[in-house]
């Protein structure tokens, strides 16, 4: 157990899961307060399991459109406020994954170092988050476009193509973040320059590694999802609800674990690529 708790990847995954849980709770909190006032004593609450019935959803939306609009706005405001805070913590979690104890530079396990690293890279991470919107939109566009071509052969192939493009976008953003952490330089331009220097020689390794981790994660998530579906197909009772919540959190944790493994892997590939690049320069 102590060994597990010392595993940085696992700790990082727990921290990511906690950050995402907090995000979900904060964004939805105003809606939940509203929902309880409406449903707490209504028979409509019996139609929330396994999923909220469309009739209940419709009655809420149709009869409270003003309130729903207000909750959407409040959700966006909470999201906008929360994301910089999440980014602040994410920088340190990246550091926790990347840095080895024997580096001697920083120990994110130490609260002071954790905060120092967070604040050092914060602006850089926010830049990546904003840039990420463009990256994901482009990845989605390319994925759907190429998916149309491959979709002629099979629907699964269409989905796989979209998935690979999104994964490529995610990998690019992770590499940018890793570069910020490892170099301490928050400039995106510098990040791109070092990516162009390192990544071309490691492209195949990056591709295979990220797809392998994602595929393994997807397989575990699917198994957990089948379990969740099985629970949801049963009648409501508190024990089943508890199991379904645990399964849901396990799914999120597996996704976060996959992300942490990818961060670690991408960092090692980059480091190796950098060594190769330096070696080539020295030879040249």
């Amino acid at each position: 157990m102590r060994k597990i708790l010392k595993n940085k990847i696992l700790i990082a995954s727990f921290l990511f899961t906690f950050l995402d849980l907090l995000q979900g709770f904060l964004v939805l909190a105003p809606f939940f307060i509203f929902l309880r006032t409406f449903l707490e004593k209504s028979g409509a609450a019996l139609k929330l399991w396994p999923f909220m019935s469309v009739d209940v959803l419709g009655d809420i939306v149709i009869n409270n459109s003003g309130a729903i609009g207000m909750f959407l706005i409040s959700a966006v405001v909470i999201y906008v406020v929360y994301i910089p805070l999440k980014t602040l913590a994410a920088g340190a979690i990246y550091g926790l994954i990347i840095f080895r104890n024997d580096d001697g530079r920083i120990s994110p396990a130490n609260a002071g170092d954790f905060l120092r690293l967070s604040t050092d890279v914060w602006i850089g991470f926010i830049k990546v988050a904003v840039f990420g919107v463009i990256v994901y939109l482009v990845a989605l566009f390319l994925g759907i476009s190429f998916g149309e071509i491959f979709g002629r052969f099979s629907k699964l192939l269409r989905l796989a193509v979209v998935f690979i493009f999104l994964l490529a976008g995610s990998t690019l953003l992770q590499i940018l973040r890793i570069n910020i952490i490892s170099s301490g330089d928050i400039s995106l331009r510098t990040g791109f320059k070092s990516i162009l220097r390192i990544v071309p020689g490691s492209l195949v390794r990056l591709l295979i590694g990220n797809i392998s981790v994602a595929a393994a994660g997807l397989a575990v998530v699917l198994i957990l999802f089948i379990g969740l579906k099985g629970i949801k197909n049963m009648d409501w009772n508190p024990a089943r609800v508890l199991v379904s919540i645990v399964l849901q959190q396990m799914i999120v944790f597996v996704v976060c674990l996959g992300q942490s493994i990818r961060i670690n892997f991408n960092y090692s590939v980059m480091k190796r690529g950098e060594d190769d690049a330096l070696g080539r320069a020295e030879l040249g």
Partner: protein
Amino acid sequence: MIPAFMAACWINAGLIALPAVLPASYEIRVQLNDSSRTLAGSQQIRFINPTSQPLESICFHLYPNAFKDTSTVFCRENPRTKSKVASGNIARLDLSEIKLNGIKVQPDNIEISGTLLYMGLPAPLKPGRSIDISMNFELLIPAAMERFGYDSNGNYIISHWYPIICGYQKGELIDREYHSNSEFFSNFSKYDVTVALPADFKFGSTGEFEQISSNDSVAVWHAAADTVIDFAFVCGPRFTVFETDTLGIRLYYMLTPNGVPFYQKTDSITKYSLAYLSDRLFQYPYKNYIVADINSGSQGLELPGLVAVVYSGSGLERTAGILEVTIAHETAHQWFYGMIATNETDDPWLDEGFASYYEDKIIESFGEDIYSINLAGWKIPISSLERNAVLQDKASFPIDMPSWEYPSWGSYSGAVYGRARLVLESLEYFLGQDSFDKAMKDYAVAYRFGHPDSDDLRDVLEASTERELLDFFNMFVKGTARIDYSVESLEFREITGDSILSYLVTVHVKRELDGKLPQVLSVGLADGARIDTLWDGRAKFREFEFRTGSIPEFAALDMVQACPLDENMINNSLYRENWTGRIMAFEWDSIFIIELLASLLL
């Protein structure tokens, strides 16, 4: 209007609606030119004055002329069609050699107004007297749009295509312009039609049909139809025709290569729909019924004895149950349009609303889990989505309004398809299932081959159920009343002084909106018993008191949620217990979705 007691007597005596004499019989001879996309020929009509007044003119619909240029009423009201017409996809119906009783009609005696042609008679035509009319005509056929044309397979749907005599309803001429939202109305007639087609064309039509001659290039088909309100046909080189039987009806499925894989689905839902409606209303009386896979410009199109459904490229395989729903809907139109021939232009809810209602009933009882979207186990019935869309509109328009008075397609379809279905379902709730079913059957039988309007419907329903329905119709058919009832409070106290422990349960209920409909108030007790009380639903507030032997668990109005017009069912019930656990489970589900999305972006 027929007084209710008289209607009841007439229904029982079978005196209503069977047309003694058909006002028109058509003899049509045409030839299709596939290369010029034209249909040319002639028609002879024997017309009998069906009114009680002498007629000084006869009016014809020239529906295809709604697409002759962009200045027509239809194009002005429908930008999509206007742009198609502007790009050269036009239709046109040209007439020549018009004769009355063999004498050529002078141009002075013909007046054309939009898609209507008025022909002055040399002498008033007395009631019950006949006149012979003949004419030649040529139809230019467009690429499929607005219910007719040829599709990308080179197949044709030929509907509303010849000069059709305008119908009469209760002695009044129904000479309505062809509007973007409006459909059709004409009286029951007899048809004898001969069509010459390219030899490789398959053919199917209203009535009974057969090929009577053929050579290398041309095949001649003959069709005869009696007591139908229109005549239409489909033809083309790319049909595979499947034939089968049900209930003594010959079924033809004319499917394109894209439609052939859907044969089994087509067959099962068609047979089920015909059986369901024959049982609930009256037996389908014609010998043939055709389902044709052809693009008519809309997902489905009803014609007498023939329905057109878009299979090709319509994404049927992707959209939940849309094929079954379309066939069920169009088959219901065989009754509510084809045989109970209401006025589609003035009372569109009487056909579209009823077809939507029966479509839903057919699909519900079909026995297969169709017509719902399944998102990873979250089954969303499309009928629920439709209800939400209708209620979102807050009853902007009454359902009984002339089609052209709705300002848009959305407001028209929302009222006459969607809200009308909810009104009929709420009427079913109001009258009770058995009583409603019997009343519908009485209405269908009473107006079989008739032309009823909303008042006729109400008269028959009142006679059949012995219930007063004027308020219901004024509120929900002619008016825009909305319904929402709520349980405001549930309280109880122990009654002291009795030898047996008992409680006084007090329930306060409220009518939130202007619509009034009786409600069943149910009070559930801790010992498992349930007290049901009928409330007339008229007062704004009402207090109910019950003396019970057990404490109450809940109070609920319309507990089974059978009245879909109730706009907020969340406030229909009040429980003593808090459902915090259930709500928390839902909250965790919601958090999970946000969490999962967020974790993918790390």
